[in-house]
């Protein structure tokens, strides 16, 4: 039978979950946790990057306005009978929300009681779109305020300045919510088109985490979900050269002290999910090793008064884009950039010692274990791994498997001065 459930265990993490292919086409994951709060995440593999797409067999690609995935997320909360979804949840006491990322739109709730009633609401409203010209227009004011809120947020602005400097074509540089102009083009027709393409259950997944009964979860799926037709979505992203668009970029904002972010663009992205995961694990360890508080780089910048707080370093690795970045506050971002370029050369000739690598790896593993204390973190990490074609337990295995040589190799290939950009947020003059 196609819809049998499979149990997957990790002895290392002392955790387990079950996978079940529901007859509707939906993959259902139940992750048992003995906590008071249960959490459900119902998501589609559809984010702000997916602006050009077609179904297999279709001749032409469809192009839609920037910010539409996020707009759609907002509009899903309205129902045909006029009832707001939050009002439906209010009866169960669940705390509900939703978010849109580059590659995923997710609807969620957490609750301590009435889990199955809330799950029914979740599956129901996400599978029943209802948009009219009037309700779509009404949302423009709200989302415009969301966009303008982020326009004043130095961290968000810094991030997009950096992406804008690094990327010539790729739409990762476009704000997830779009712009006040782009969202004014959104119509109910566009929303239905995106909905019908991406909210196909074969392109979605449900992760439930908590002290829940799997069979009851499947019963709710049986009750609410109608089978989706098989589908293959073809997404097209603009091709991106290895070279950065510009060496530096900046914006002036009402801040007290400059903020900086340095990014290293990487265009070598494997089509194989396992390969990508391996690289991600490597990149995560390398970021900790090279920019963490125990690194010589951090120590020198701090001692010299060039930075004050942490350097938040991370490796973003996706099916269509990949980069290393770190950011912080500094009164002299250009000097930090200079020091960074020197550091790249230096670690290529004298790489960090083996024990620094081992420590970084230990830290990444320990950080990862910490995720499993929260049903919320588990479910969100869970589905982002699923949509990347791997599983959450694979990541722990990938981290454990990274060798010192692989980490050094990663650093040597990815860190190239010519693929670096510096972004700054400067105080108003």
């Amino acid at each position, binding site marked *: 039978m196609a819809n049998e459930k499979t149990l997957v265990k990790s002895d290392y993490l002392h955790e387990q979950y079950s996978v079940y292919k529901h007859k509707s086409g939906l993959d259902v994951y139940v992750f048992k946790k003995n906590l008071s709060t249960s959490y459900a995440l119902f998501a589609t593999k559809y984010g702000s990057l997916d602006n050009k797409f077609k179904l297999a067999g279709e001749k032409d690609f469809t192009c839609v306005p920037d910010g539409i995935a996020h707009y759609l997320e907002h509009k899903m909360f309205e129902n045909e009978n006029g009832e707001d979804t*939050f*009002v439906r949840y209010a009866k169960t006491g669940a705390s509900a929300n939703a978010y849109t990322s580059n590659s995923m739109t997710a609807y969620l709730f957490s609750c301590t009681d009435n889990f199955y009633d809330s799950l029914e609401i979740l599956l129901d409203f996400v599978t029943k779109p209802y948009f009219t010209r009037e309700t779509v227009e009404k949302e423009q004011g709200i989302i415009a*305020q969301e966009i303008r809120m982020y326009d004043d947020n130095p961290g968000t602005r810094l991030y997009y300045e950096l992406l804008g400097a690094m990327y010539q074509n790729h739409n990762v540089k476009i704000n997830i919510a779009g712009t006040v102009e782009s969202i004014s083009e959104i119509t109910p027709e566009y929303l239905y088109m995106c909905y019908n393409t991406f909210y196909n259950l074969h392109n979605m997944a449900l992760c439930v985490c908590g002290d829940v009964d799997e069979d009851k979860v499947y019963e709710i799926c049986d009750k609410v979900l109608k089978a989706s037709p098989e589908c293959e979505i073809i997404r097209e992203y603009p091709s991106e050269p290895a070279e950065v668009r510009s060496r530096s970029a900046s914006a002036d904002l009402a801040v007290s002290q400059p903020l900086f972010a340095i990014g290293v663009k990487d265009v070598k992205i494997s089509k194989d999910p396992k390969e990508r995961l391996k690289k991600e694990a490597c990149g995560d360890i390398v970021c900790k090793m090279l920019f963490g508080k*125990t690194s010589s780089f951090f120590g020198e910048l701090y001692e010299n008064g060039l930075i004050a707080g942490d350097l938040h370093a991370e490796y973003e690795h996706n099916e269509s884009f990949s980069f290393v970045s770190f950011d912080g506050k500094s009164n002299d971002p250009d000097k930090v950039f200079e020091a960074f370029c020197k550091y790249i050369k230096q670690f290529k000739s004298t790489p960090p010692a083996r024990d620094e690598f081992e420590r970084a790896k230990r830290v990444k593993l320990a950080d990862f274990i910490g995720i499993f204390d929260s049903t919320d973190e588990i479910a969100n990490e869970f589905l982002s791994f699923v949509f990347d074609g791997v599983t959450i337990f694979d990541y722990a295995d990938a981290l454990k498997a990274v060798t010192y040589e692989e980490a050094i190799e990663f650093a040597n290939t990815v860190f190239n001065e010519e693929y670096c950009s510096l972004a700054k947020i400067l105080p108003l003059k």
Partner: protein
Amino acid sequence: MNLPRYKIAEGISASCLASDKFKVNSITLGIELPLNIENVTSANLLTRVLKRGCKKYPDIGSIEKQLDELYAAGLALGVNRSGESHYLCVYTDFLSSLYTEGCDIIKEIVDMIGEVLLNPLTADGAFNQAYVKSEKKNLSDDIDSLINNKAKYARNRCIEEMCKDEVYSLSMFGDKSILEAITPKELCDFHFNMLKKGRIEILYTGDEKFFDKVCAELSRVFSQLPREYNALPCTCEVRSSAEKIREITEEMEINQGKLSIGMRTGVTNSDSDIGALIVANEIFGGSPNSKLFMNVREKMSLCYYCSSGLDAVKGLMFVNAGIESENYEIAKNAILKQLDAVKAGEFTDEEFESAVNSLVNSYKSVSDSVSALENWYMPRIFRGEQDTPETRLKQVTSVTKEDAARAAKRISPDVIFFLRGSKKEA
């Protein structure tokens, strides 16, 4: 609230929040200080200087290296406030022994706390000159950077104006001119004086079977500490209502205006109306089902966020919203109109029940997070208050609609602060 408790020394006690379900456990230590601007400034500087290095681990790199060795243990220092009480805190978190391959993690963590807090780098009765100098600069920059987060800035300005002559309004980070004058010797005296006189509460969250071990390790490290403990009176000035509404507007070059309304409730944790006020706040602006969300955002499309929250120690309520600057009057009136509706009892059974359900959900969730548990219990341990999330849940579920409306009538708007955007376009 009957937490297992153990006296380590005069004015130093450890409590246990027993839970065996977490992979990451914690030990948090709070030292109470009288709330005045000198103490706030010194405590902030102190947390930074202590984290720079101690005798055993003389720089950031060596402290962090040891923490990394301890399976990515966290050790952070900070200054915290609850009502008008003020604490310097040391927060640690660490993996349960299930994952630490035989490492005696509890001993190691308590040792770290001891090294960083009790054995700082000193010479001739003063802290390291260079560390104090650079951290003064960093703290001064941080005080300046409070303008970076516009919503928080507006809220802080609202508090400053509303509680002008109350210590509640003192800056969280301290004062730059006081900071400028602090010498390494004075900071060192401040530190050892605090360790000698301050009340110290330690909270362990983890498997109860290790609490004895935690206490034994803490006793070993803290028993040598010279103590002259004097209990501080636990006070917080509460004003029951505002004299009149004051509107204050400031301009900044920003896209979105930030509105922050401060109100007096006079209702604190020990007040019999507290449960009713919490329900009233939830109906008014505490969730996506609230009047503020449903009307000011959903119906009027005026904002992306508009919500209310309580400070039940000081007896205050705050409303925060991000709006188009030209909509100030409309938004302000819409918010006050919704408040009047709650006061008049104009809410449906459904609105009332959803508010209670949502609160029940949040109180039941507290036990699922180490940080939520700490945030709940730590200030209550200091204040000697007995309420738990469970007792609060009972209070809230016994509230009637009439109770909620009655409690809402005790809310009086005091300061309406608006940070107006002076820029037309992004």
